């Protein structure tokens, strides 16, 4: 398990990361969300040890993470690139060796992953000759090359086409299924919602919310949409119901409780045709906006 305790980074007057504490349990995928400048990249750099924390610590398997541990973490930095003038296979082999693999193992693994990502024909091509999308794929391979024990990925999905997003998602699931903890940051909240077991929301350097998306939603108020064949104006008069929006036969509402909602539905049925009665689950972006605004 990867964990950070009280991680803090001060840049002059600015406290970019402020007392951040969270865990990435083994085999779990944790989404790291927050606006630009929230401190995600700084936190990830401190986890990888490329940036020294002002305070706090990163722990791996219950003890402070050593440089040796970190050599075995897979990392995709926000600012990323490869040697433009070196053939892609050679270069990935080199990166694998830096992570402690033998020449043979690194070469084999790099080739296997390149083939899997549809780059089997371009092994000897220089990176600068690859399309942007293919460079991204090579970048992904670089981060998972050394059989990482943990994955720290800064915006791994940005710039990927839908096919590559699916390939990436599969790759991440493969890693979590073998017990590797994965932390990735993203602005694509739907994707985070779809993939992640848990979410950490960072705002102005502080963790403002964390948990599973269910847990985060649990705090959100109950909300329904009711759509009738006739006019829905009468709903305004029902006690215990707060109408958020009313448009002809459709009403967006917040009941005080589940019982109030059920009574409303029963009344609607007796009054005439009900087209739709749907529990509205707030999207992650709505939750995010709410916690970020708080």
């Amino acid at each position, binding site marked *: 398990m990867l964990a950070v305790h009280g991680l803090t980074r001060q840049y002059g007057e600015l406290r970019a990361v402020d007392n951040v504490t969270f865990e990435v349990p083994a085999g779990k995928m944790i989404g790291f969300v927050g606006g630009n400048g929230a401190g995600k990249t700084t936190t990830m*750099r401190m986890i*990888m*040890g*490329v*940036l*020294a924390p002002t305070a706090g610590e990163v722990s791996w398997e219950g003890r402070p993470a*050593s*440089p*040796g541990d*970190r*050599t*075995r*973490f897979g*990392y*995709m*930095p926000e*600012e*990323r*690139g*490869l*040697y*433009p003038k*070196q053939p892609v296979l050679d270069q990935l082999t*080199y*990166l694998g*060796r*830096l*992570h*402690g*693999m*033998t020449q043979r193992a690194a070469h084999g693994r790099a080739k296997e992953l390149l083939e899997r990502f549809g780059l089997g024909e371009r092994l000897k091509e220089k990176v600068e000759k690859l399309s942007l999308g293919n460079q991204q794929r090579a970048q992904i391979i*670089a*981060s998972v090359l*050394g*059989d990482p*024990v943990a994955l720290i990925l800064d915006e791994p999905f940005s710039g990927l086409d839908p096919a590559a997003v699916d390939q990436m998602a599969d790759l991440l699931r493969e890693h979590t299924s073998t017990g590797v903890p994965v932390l990735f940051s993203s602005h694509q909240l739907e994707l985070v919602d779809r993939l992640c077991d848990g979410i950490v929301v960072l705002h102005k350097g502080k963790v403002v919310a964390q948990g599973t998306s269910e847990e985060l939603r649990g705090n959100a108020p109950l909300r329904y949409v009711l759509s009738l064949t006739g006019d829905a104006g009468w709903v305004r008069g029902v006690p215990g119901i707060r109408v958020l929006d009313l448009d002809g036969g459709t009403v967006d509402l917040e009941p005080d409780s589940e019982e109030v909602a059920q009574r409303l539905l029963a009344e609607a049925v007796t009054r005439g045709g009900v087209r739709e009665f749907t529990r509205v689950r707030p999207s992650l972006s709505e939750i995010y906006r709410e916690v970020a605004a708080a």
Partner: protein
Amino acid sequence: MSTNTSLKPETSVETGAVTAAESAAKSPWALVALRELQVKLTDRNFLLGTGVTILLVGAVFALQGFLLGGGPPSFKVAVTDTAATTVLTQAEQDLQASDPEASVDVVEVADTAAAEALLTDEEVHGALLPAGDGWELVTNGETDSQMLSVITDAVRTTALQQNAEAAGTSLDALTVGTTVETRDLSGGDEQSRFVAWIAGFAMAMLFYMAAIMFGMAIANSVVEEKQSRIVEILAAAIPVRALLTGKVVGNTVLAFGQMALLGAVALVGLTFTDYDQYLSMLTEAFLWYIPFFVLGFLALACVWAAAGAMASRTEDLQSTTMPLTMVLVVVFIVGLSLDGAAKVIGSFVPVLSTILMPMRLLDGSAQWWEAVLALGITAAFCLLTIGAGTRLYRRSLLQTSGRVSLKAAWSGGE
């Protein structure tokens, strides 16, 4: 680097991973150094440049050999009687006094016609034939002036000797008081001073060129990693110190290799010229030069890396490496122009000593212990610059936006 070796791996999978991490943690710098070598040694421009330089150095010596020397003087002369043989033996002795490898070969023939036949066939360079009271030197076409003068002298000496004996005295008695000895206050003779100066200049030039070329290569290799943004992946995979060590070691090996290759070509080339009598003196000086070259290069290597780290694009390199280029230009010019006490003092100043101490060893004005002392001072200076260079490198490596000022790099956090 602190891989926890006391930690007992629990499963076989774990064992493999820990071993792998350990081996990477042990020598990632070696992987970086190997990559530096590989990139340079497969760079066509670098290979071409080195090849052309070696060819040029070889050509200089080949030309020297062909035009000026052509090996030791060696003449083949036909004779018809033993008196001529005596003269030629004397001529050979005279020649060997200045060049031990010189030779005069005697070919004995029956008569003048046979001698002339050999000349026509260009089998011999000349024929020494009796003519009246004296001698006749017959040649075919151009007469070698050295052959003419040495044989003329030998004829005179032989004749004088015989005449002296006939008069009841000896040649030594006749020539007593006719010798002129020379004494040069500067110590060595003109030629050896010239050779020492040329060799010193060549070594200074070689250091200057290599320091700039491979120093720039270090800075370039650092900024390339920053510009392409791969640096953060590297810094996360291995310690920044290992990355720096690998670059410095790789380029030092390259600089040393190129220097050794050029030095070897020059020394081998020397054996084909008239200057081969200086071979042992030059070889000794060159062996002293090697540690001065390596330490002089190392003294600046980490600073070159720092200059590379302070730039964020190749375009910035010119300004961040300017102080280093200036230092080397000044060292080169000052090194060549210093004289007297200033030269002695300069030969102990780090980097400057790489140029001046080999020169002083060449002209014989420095003792071996002075060279060792100068090397010690440079080694101590290296520790300083490596420390400072590493600090600047570490603190500016991950600043990928714009140039980093010296002040910011020095005081910035990691």
